[in-house]
């Protein structure tokens, strides 16, 4: 069983590495420079996949939080918490790479428009999720509180996604679904999305595994004390 896990993890790490190399090659050597955006537009090919992974991560947290509240099994909570942790990492990257791109593109680092503000709120919700869990001593209570925040907090994800269509924002609309990309651009974006999705899977497996190990240590300590 352990051997199978190691093999699966090894394959995933290898696949993630190969896909990342392919993604970097496509971003820096294959895809043509966009006419209006210039070279800095290439941030788009990592900025969008990173945002996609953060949405996916919070969706997984939402699903596994429901499963935890329903079944009360720590393995579901481990996945929910691991996914929220990875989601926060990737949302942080969205909030850093966005302004780095905005400065040369818009002339400003930040503006309080709907997309940027709701993204910041999303980050704050899941930072609060991790803080509440960390500050609540008793593990099952921490899991319960976390699950509630993981479910309620997910409401912000569709709001973030829809902001550019519902309000007039500085942030561009979702050109991916409107045919605004040429074939090489779309191919590059897709490879980057797949690469980051594999990276997310690898990270969540590692992180959830560690949370299960922590639970195992707690169980062994209780056994020893008895």
């Amino acid at each position: 069983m352990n051997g199978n896990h190691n093999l699966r993890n090894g394959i995933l790490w290898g696949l993630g590495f190969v896909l990342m190399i392919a993604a970097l090659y496509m971003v820096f050597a294959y895809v043509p420079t966009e006419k209006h955006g210039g070279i800095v537009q290439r941030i788009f090919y990592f900025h969008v996949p990173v945002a996609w992974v953060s949405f996916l991560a919070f969706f997984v947290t939402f699903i596994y939080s429901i499963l935890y509240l329903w079944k009360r099994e720590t393995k579901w909570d481990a996945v929910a918490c691991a996914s929220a942790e990875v989601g926060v990492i990737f949302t942080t990257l969205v909030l850093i790479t966005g302004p780095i791109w905005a400065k040369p593109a818009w002339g400003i680092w930040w503006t309080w428009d709907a997309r940027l503000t709701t993204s910041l709120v999303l980050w704050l919700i899941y930072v609060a999720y991790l803080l509440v869990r960390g500050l609540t001593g008793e593990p099952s209570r921490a899991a319960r509180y976390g699950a509630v925040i993981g479910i309620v907090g997910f409401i912000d994800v569709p709001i973030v996604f829809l902001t550019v269509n519902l309000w007039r924002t500085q942030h561009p609309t979702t050109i991916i679904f409107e045919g605004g990309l040429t074939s090489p651009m779309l191919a590059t974006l897709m490879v980057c999305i797949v690469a980051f999705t594999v990276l997310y899977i690898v990270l969540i497996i590692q992180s959830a595994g560690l949370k299960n190990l922590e639970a195992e240590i707690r169980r062994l300590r209780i056994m020893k004390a008895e």
Partner: protein
Amino acid sequence: MENLGYLLAAYAVIWAVVFGYILVLLRKQRKLKKQVDALKESMEK
């Protein structure tokens, strides 16, 4: 090549944060494995 610095900064930040997180996970894994081994050993005695 205008704005190349912004492009490199964005990619550098992404890789720094991702590798940083992987390092944190690896360190935590090593620490927890040591704890499990110590606990199992003390329970076998």
